[in-house]
């Protein structure tokens, strides 16, 4: 065992301190790069797209001429598809979360179902598109319709709703349930009158997050067979459709600069929609936290 001298120790300590500062700088740099990329991305898209945004852009159909192209069909298609997806994932997600949390928390089936849900969340989205193509479009004869697209995205975002609802339901204090049981309420009465109202903001936050994921999805709908050129608005659940991300993808892959500008303008619209939805989710969450805290 050797004893290090005083000067040796001081030299080493200075080096360790210097390395510590360098490491701190490296960590800061990493965060700065990540935030910087986000800033560059947003500024670049804004510059590219802002000139393309106009009233006629929002209210025109797709066109072969870039300066006449608009996103009317894409926006309406997105809204319809996402509404179907939202309702599908809400109903199935809340029902599943209630079953797993309130009815079968410790059963073997519940354990399998929970592992399954974790894995579903990791399945590539394009695989859901193929599932939708075979089940909804072909087997159920829905065609490449709004309904088929909405169901496909509904299944895709289902794990998000299940996990968020499960957390919200678990956060409801047991004392509330016990009080209701004590008054003679049945299990469903407890859930309907006590658990769901308490958990609702959390559930709604989950649904908003799920819908904002669904609204940006492109690949599964392409795999399912959504159109890329739609000069009409979908007029029924069985009508064919396109969505905003597919329209953006289509314009991006064209060589003409005019279409690329239209794509950037479409991206701005998409990001604004996402921003509004996420802001809604944040406001809801804060309200929820304040309520349960006080």
């Amino acid at each position, binding site marked *: 065992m050797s004893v290090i001298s005083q000067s040796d120790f001081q030299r080493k300590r200075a080096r*360790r301190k210097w*390395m*510590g500062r360098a*490491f*701190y700088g*490296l*960590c*800061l740099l*990493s*965060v700065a*790069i*990540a935030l910087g*990329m*986000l800033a*560059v*991305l947003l500024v*670049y*898209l804004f510059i590219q797209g802002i000139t393309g945004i106009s009233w006629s852009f929002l209210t025109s159909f797709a066109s072969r001429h870039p300066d006449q192209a608009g996103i009317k069909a894409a926006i309406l298609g997105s809204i319809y598809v996402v509404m179907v997806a939202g309702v599908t994932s809400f109903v*199935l997600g809340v*029902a*599943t979360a209630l079953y*797993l949390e309130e*009815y*079968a928390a410790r059963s073997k*089936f*519940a354990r*399998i179902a929970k*592992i399954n849900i*974790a*894995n*579903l969340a*990791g*399945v*590539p*989205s*394009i*695989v859901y598109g*193929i*599932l939708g193509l075979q089940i909804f479009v*072909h087997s159920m004869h829905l065609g490449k319709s709004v309904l088929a697209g909405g169901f496909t995205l509904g299944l895709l975002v289902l794990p998000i709703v*299940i996990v968020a609802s499960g957390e919200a339901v678990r956060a409801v204090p047991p004392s509330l349930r016990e009080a209701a049981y004590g008054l003679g309420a*049945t*299990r469903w009465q407890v859930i309907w009158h006590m658990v769901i109202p308490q958990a609702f903001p959390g559930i709604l936050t989950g649904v908003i997050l799920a819908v*904002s994921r669904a*609204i*940006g*999805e*492109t*690949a599964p709908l*392409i*795999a*399912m067979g959504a159109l*890329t050129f739609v000069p009409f608005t979908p007029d029924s659940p069985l009508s064919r459709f396109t969505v905003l991300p597919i329209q*953006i*993808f289509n314009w*991006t892959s064209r060589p003409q600069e005019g279409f*690329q500008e239209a*794509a950037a303008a479409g*991206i701005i619209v998409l990001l604004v929609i996402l921003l509004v939805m*996420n802001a809604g989710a944040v406001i809801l969450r804060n309200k929820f936290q304040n309520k349960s805290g006080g």
Partner: protein
Amino acid sequence: MAKNPVGPPLGQGARNAWKRMATERAIAALLFLSTFLSVLITIGIVAVLLFEAITFFADVSVFEFLSGTRWTPLFSSKQFGVLALVAGTTLTAVMAMVVALPLGLLSAVYLSEYAPNGVRKVVKPILEVLAGIPTVVYGYFALLFVTPILRSISGDISVFNALSASIVMGIMILPMVSSLSEDAMRAVPRTLREGAYALGSTKLEVSTLVVVPAALSGIVSAFILAVSRAIGETMIVTIAAGQNPTFTLNPFVPIETMTAYIVQVSQGDAPAGSIEFKTIFAVALLLFVITLVMNLLSQFVVSRFREEYE
């Protein structure tokens, strides 16, 4: 029915109780059915993929599929070597991780160990915005912003290339690495850090020799999940990396990933039942199996190797 000021007559009470019980049972059954449906999705995915893939493998041997390096199902002389697509997927996923892992891990160390609470509360959600941006937007950014910059640096780089797509994909999955790693690091108890500080460690030493090793299972699992996400990512590589299945590790030339191939066939008009159509099921099956194995591995790492501190 006689009026009863106190309560319902006995007969009606029993009927109500029976009705309530029937409702309870029906609701429990409905909720169970919904849960069962979520399990059915996985079964449905496997069944749908297997069904068409089996007929595909009746025409093309599994060995040829898994060992061939030329993928030309859309040409007249068809070859079905999926390794050309696997190479594209591997190349983009690995390079994306080269970007996402160091940046994500260092960001996580910063947020967990260095950042004051106020800064963390602001920076973390902003970082997570990166994960919420639709992938088609990243695709646009890669093709029209990053690629031109790369091409101005080196003339060898094609318009469609794996490098640009990978860099942008790395940025996209960075918040996933940083968020999950940070959660794991923050779960490391203070006492461990304080013990190391008491022995005279610097913050660097505490972070890299105590906190990171203690949180390693969470970090590794985050890393595996991020790789799985990169493998399944579709739009960035479809838009920016090209549609040329090439068995290469050269990041400067056009390639094609498994996911981009599925999009390519879906966009065309391969008739149902044709061999071109069936290829997407074989490719999707392979993709599904790879990502499933990685997701299970990630869960296994957390449950098997987690350090428990009480």
